[in-house]
C-alpha cells in the first residue's frame, strides 16, 4: 500500500516534468515542424548558470530565475542566429542545423567549464522526505509536481485565452494563412522560442535539482524524453505532448519499480522499445491529430 502511494506520487511528479519538457519541444515543432535537437542543451544552460552563480551571495530563488532567463535568451538567440537563415530550406537542413547547434553548446561547456560533472548544491529541505503513514514521499517530487502543474495550467490559460496563444495555435494549424492575415512570421517564431525556452528553463531548474549535478551532455536524456513523448503523444498538439509526457513518466517509474535488478541497466532500451511498439499499433500517436505533419514553406 505504502509503495503504491510512493509510486503514484513519483509517477505524477516525473510525468509532469516530462510533460513540461515535451511541451517546450512541441511549441517549436508545431510551428516550424522542427525537432530542435539543441533543446537538451537548454537544460544544460540552466544547470551551468546555477553552478556559476551558486558561490555568490545571490539567494537561491533568484539564481533559479536568472537560470530560466538565461535559457530563454539562449533559446531565442539560437533561433535568430542558426534557424532563421535556414527557414526556407528543407526540414532535414534544419534538423541537422539544430544538431550542430547542440554540438556547439556542448563543446563550449566542455572547453570553458569542465568535461566532468559539476556539483549543484540542492538545499537540504528539498532532498528530505516526509512520512505519510508508512510511505516516504520526497519533498522534491512534491515541489516538482506543484511547479510543473502550475506552469502547465498557466500555459494552457495563455494558449486558450490570450491573443498570443490564439496566434501560436493558428500558426501550428496554417502558418501561411496566418501571415496572409498580417501577422509577421518572425514575431510568431520568436515568441514560440521564448515560450519554449521558458518551459525548458523551468524544467531545467527542476531537472538539475533532481540530479544535483550538471555536465556537458546532461541534456541528452531530457531531449530524448521530450522527443519520444511528443512522438508518442501524436506530434502535433499540445494535449498530445502532455499526455505523452505523463505516459513516459509513468512508464519510467513503473519499469523502475518492477523491472528485475539485472535488467535495470536496460531501462532506457525497454522504454524506447515500448514506445516503438506503441507506434507499430498507433503510428499517429496516442492523441490523434487531425492533420498530417507536413511542412509548409
Amino acid at each position: 500500500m505504502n509503495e503504491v502511494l510512493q509510486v503514484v506520487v513519483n509517477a505524477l511528479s516525473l510525468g509532469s516534468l516530462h510533460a513540461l519538457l515535451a511541451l517546450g519541444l512541441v511549441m517549436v515543432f508545431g510551428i516550424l515542424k522542427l525537432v530542435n535537437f539543441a533543446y537538451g542543451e537548454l537544460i544544460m544552460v540552466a544547470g551551468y548558470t546555477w553552478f556559476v552563480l551558486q558561490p555568490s551571495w545571490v539567494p537561491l530563488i533568484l539564481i533559479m530565475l536568472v537560470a530560466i532567463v538565461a535559457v530563454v535568451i539562449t533559446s531565442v538567440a539560437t533561433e535568430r542566429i542558426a534557424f532563421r537563415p535556414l527557414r526556407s530550406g528543407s526540414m532535414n537542413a534544419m534538423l541537422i542545423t539544430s544538431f550542430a547547434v547542440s554540438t556547439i553548446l556542448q563543446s563550449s561547456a566542455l572547453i570553458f567549464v569542465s568535461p566532468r560533472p559539476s556539483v549543484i548544491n540542492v538545499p537540504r529541505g528539498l532532498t528530505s522526505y516526509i512520512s505519510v503513514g508508512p510511505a516516504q514521499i520526497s519533498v522534491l517530487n512534491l515541489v516538482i509536481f506543484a511547479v510543473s502543474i502550475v506552469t502547465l495550467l498557466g500555459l494552457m490559460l495563455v494558449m486558450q485565452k490570450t491573443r498570443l496563444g490564439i496566434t501560436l495555435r493558428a500558426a501550428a494549424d496554417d502558418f501561411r494563412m496566418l501571415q496572409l492575415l498580417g501577422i509577421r512570421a518572425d514575431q510568431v517564431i520568436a515568441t514560440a522560442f521564448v515560450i519554449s525556452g521558458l518551459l525548458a528553463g523551468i524544467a531545467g531548474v527542476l531537472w538539475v535539482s533532481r540530479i544535483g549535478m550538471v555536465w556537458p551532455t546532461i541534456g541528452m536524456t531530457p531531449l530524448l524524453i521530450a522527443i519520444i513523448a511528443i512522438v508518442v503523444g501524436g506530434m502535433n498538439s499540445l494535449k498530445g505532448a502532455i499526455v505523452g509526457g505523463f505516459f513516459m513518466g509513468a512508464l519510467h517509474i513503473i519499469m523502475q519499480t518492477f523491472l528485475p535488478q539485472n535488467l535495470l541497466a536496460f531501462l532506457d532500451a525497454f522504454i524506447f522499445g515500448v514506445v516503438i511498439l506503441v507506434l507499430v499499433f498507433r503510428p499517429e500517436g496516442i492523441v490523434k491529430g487531425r492533420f498530417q505533419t507536413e511542412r509548409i514553406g
Partner: protein
Amino acid sequence: MTQLSRLPLARKTLPVIITLGALVVIAVGVSLFGSTVTNRIVTVMFVHVVLVLGLQLFMGNSGILSFAHVGFMAIGAYGSALMSIPAENKSRSLPNLYEPLMGVELGFLPAILVGAATAGLFAAITGVALMRLSDTAAAISSFALLVIINVVLSQWNEVTNGPRTLSGILKYTDMWTAFGWAAIGVIVAFLFKESSLGMKLRASRDNLHAADAIGINVTRTRWISFVFSAFIAGLAGGLWAHFITSFQPDALYFEMTFLVLMMLVVGGPHTITGATLGVIIVTVVNEGLRSIENNLALSGALPFKTVGMTEIVLAVVLIIMLALRPGGIIHTVELGGGVGRRRELQTSASSQKGTRR
C-alpha cells in the same frame, strides 16, 4: 540518332568513373607518398565512404533523415568482431561470453557479412514500425533507435564487454581492402539509384502523393531500401572494427553520427558524387582542425582546454554551409552528369512545382 541514344548512358556512367577515379588517385597517391598517419586517415576515410554511401542510398533517395545508421554500423562492428575474434582472445576480452559464441571463429569476409546481416535484420524488424511513420516522426524515431542500440551495446556485458573497450580483434582491414569496398559501394549506390526501386524511392521523395497515386507502395519501397542501406552500414562497421581493433560503444555514437551526417549534407545528399566529395572534404577539414587543436593544446598558448574546438568549428561551418547552399555542394545533377542536362533540370523543376504548391 546514335548520338541521342548514347547521351543518357554517358550521363549515367561518367559520374561513376569520376568518383572511382578520384578514389583511385587518392589510394595510389597515399600508397606511394603517404606516411603511416595519412594511410590510417585515408583507410578510415574509405570506410566512411562505404558508410555514407549506405546512408545516401536510403536518405538521399527517400528524403528521410536517419540518425540510426551509425547504430547499424555499431551492430556490424560488434557482430563481426564476435564472429572473428579467435577463441583464445575471446576468453580474455569477453570472459562471460555465452558458450555457443565462444568457439565461433570465422574468417574476415564471412565475419563482416554476418555483422552486416545482423544490422540488416535489426533494421528489418524496427523498420516495420519506422517506415510507416511520416518523415519527421521517422527521423526522430531513428534517433531513438540510435540510443536504444547504444544502451544495449553498452550494457550487455557478456557480449560487448559493456561500456569498456572490446579488444582482441584481428587487423584484417588495410587501405586497399577499404578502397575495394568503397569502390563497390560507389557502384552499388549508382546501380541502386538507377534501379526501379531507387526510381520509385526518389519518386516518393519528390512527391509522396503522386507516387502513391501511381501505385508505388511507398512503405514497402522505403522498408527495402532501409534494410539494404543498414546492411551496407553494418558492412562499414565490420571494416572499421577490423581496422581499429579495439573500441567501445561510445566510439560509434553521437560524435560519429554528427560527422557522417555532415559528410552527406555538405557534399549533397541527393547525389553520389556529392556524398563522396563530402566525405573527402570533411575528412580533410576534420583532420586539419584536429591537428591544430592538438598543437595548440601542446603549446599551451590558450588559457583554456582545446578539446571540443574542432567540433565547434565544424558545426559552425556546417551551419553556414546549410544557410548558403542547403542542397550541398553537388545538389541535383551528379558531377559529370551534366551531359543532356536541360532535360534533367526540367524534370527536377516540375517535381519542385509538385511539392511546393
